[in-house]
């Protein structure tokens, strides 16, 4: 009996020890897993912070790379959304559209923005709003292939992640680029560690706004001179890929009930060929959309003075030229599409009052 009791006690002790051992092992496993998770999270945070630090900030000399992300900070739904290259973001003043017509507009432009990038930036914007009018500058149809990683990065890094961004990157990547470097920018920018400046730390987490609802303001004056003779045009037609994305843009706008307006802004260079102009007129007629060649009416109807209204010898407008272009285009958009003024909207007016204050300071040369 005593032996039996001893055995029982021993068994119980053994069982307890086993249970303790199992519990102990389980506890140890849980601790290890928790430790690994904590370490992974901390490492992830550290990598993310490093990634943010090493990315180009576009706050110094090359600020155009900041334009894409600024869209997400703008207020309200837009009456007019522009997409396109520097011929939109430097040639149209959103402040003028507000002041003269009470229109809330945004220019989702970018340096050498390619037509497929314009399409995806538009598609991205339509995740948040449905503008009444989309204006697209057609010069970029001359590019039928991905051009340059630097421009791709400037156009795409600022986009919020979505399937649209994924598709935009796929359409844009040049040889040597890879999707994983867009998903994890630290893989691309890690070598900037020895090029970091004080601006990288200053703008580590927050950037200044460099545009006026996407309008990139220039005040200098450099009169236009004689342009070089244009190259002989090899093929008068735009490439298949370029036209594919113009078609997609046209269809997307039609599907959403948006008025698409094609423009050729009044920049004198690169040369806009008659054959391209004819192609655009034909395309617009076939699709029932408006096409305006602002180049051919720049002086006669828009009032552009190429000795005063351009900051780089006719390649782009300065602020006075941009205001004239906006005044001209705004009148057409209001009359044709019945766009209404939002100046009675107190919050909108308050937003634009701040934008105007910055704008007027920049015009007067009093930027910080």
């Amino acid at each position: 009996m005593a032996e039996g009791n001893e055995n029982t006690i021993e068994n119980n002790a053994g069982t307890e020890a086993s249970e303790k051992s199992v519990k102990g092992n389980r506890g140890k496993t849980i601790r290890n897993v928790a430790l690994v998770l904590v370490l992974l999270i901390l490492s992830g945070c550290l990598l993310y912070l490093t990634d943010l630090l090493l990315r180009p900030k576009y706050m110094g000399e090359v600020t155009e790379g900041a334009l894409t992300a600024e869209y997400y900070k703008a207020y309200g739904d837009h009456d007019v959304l522009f997409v396109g290259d520097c011929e939109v973001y430097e040639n149209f003043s959103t402040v003028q559209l507000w002041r003269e017509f009470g229109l809330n507009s945004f220019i989702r432009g970018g340096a050498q923005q390619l037509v497929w990038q314009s399409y995806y930036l538009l598609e991205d914007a339509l995740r948040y709003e449905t503008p009444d009018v989309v204006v697209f500058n057609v010069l970029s149809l001359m590019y039928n292939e991905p051009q340059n990683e630097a421009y791709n990065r400037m156009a795409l890094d600022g986009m919020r992640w979505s399937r649209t961004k994924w598709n935009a990157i796929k359409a844009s990547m040049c040889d040597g680029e890879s999707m994983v470097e867009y998903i994890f920018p630290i893989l691309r920018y890690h070598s900037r560690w020895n090029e970091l400046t004080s601006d990288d730390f200053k703008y580590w987490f927050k950037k200044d706004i460099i545009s006026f609802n996407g309008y990139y303001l220039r005040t200098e004056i450099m009169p236009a001179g004689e342009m070089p003779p244009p190259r002989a045009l090899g093929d008068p037609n735009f490439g298949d890929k370029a036209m594919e994305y113009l078609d997609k843009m046209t269809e997307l706008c039609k599907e959403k009930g948006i008025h698409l307006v094609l423009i050729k802004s009044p920049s004198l260079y690169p040369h806009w060929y008659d054959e391209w102009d004819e192609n655009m007129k034909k395309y617009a007629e076939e699709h029932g959309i408006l096409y305006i060649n602002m180049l051919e009416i720049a002086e006669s109807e828009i009032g552009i003075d190429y000795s005063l209204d351009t900051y780089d010898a006719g390649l782009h407008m300065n602020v006075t030229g941009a205001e004239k272009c906006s005044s001209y285009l705004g009148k057409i958009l209001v009359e044709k599409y019945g766009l209404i003024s939002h100046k009675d909207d107190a919050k909108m007016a308050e937003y634009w009052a701040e934008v105007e204050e910055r704008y007027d300071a920049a015009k007067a040369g009093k930027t910080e």
Partner: protein
Amino acid sequence: MKKIASVVLVMVMAAAMAACSDSKKVESTKSTGGETTTTASTDGEAGPTDAESDQAEGTVEVSMDISDNFVFKYKETEIRLGDKPDAVMAALGDAKNTLDVPSCAHDGTDHVYTYDNIVVTVYSPADGSGDYISDVRVISDLVATPEGLEIGMDIMRAREIYGEADKTTDKQWFYKRGTSEMIVTVQNDKVVEIEYMIP
């Protein structure tokens, strides 16, 4: 526990530094009024140089070999594509007009010089790595290429002089030499333009 922590940390650092082992080739680009030419270079560098220079550790500077490039001759001045411009521009003298075309993203500037019969473009990279002659365009039938091709000739003369083109489209024939290219533009079977460039 310590071993697990060590392994996890090593894995994370290895993943983060995965791309550091190779120097990353970056294409720097200049725009020439819509035409884009590209020069291969290493991280952050742009444009060709004549020799290797000190670089960040792990990177190697790529020089553009211009020895086999097309050479155009204008009024006794030899213009080799990719070459430094100073001597050539001095020999050519004042242009009829000049246009500076900065890239939209501050990636250098094209200086376009128009003369009576040719247009010469000199590219200045943004990083100051050295200007070079990036484009020469024949715009008149008063000058011929060194091999004898002229604007206005039948396109088949190009084949007689230069052989089969490396690439052709309906409107253009492309010939490559070294790191340069000659593009002959055709309309109605006639040569309408001859252009040399660094593609």
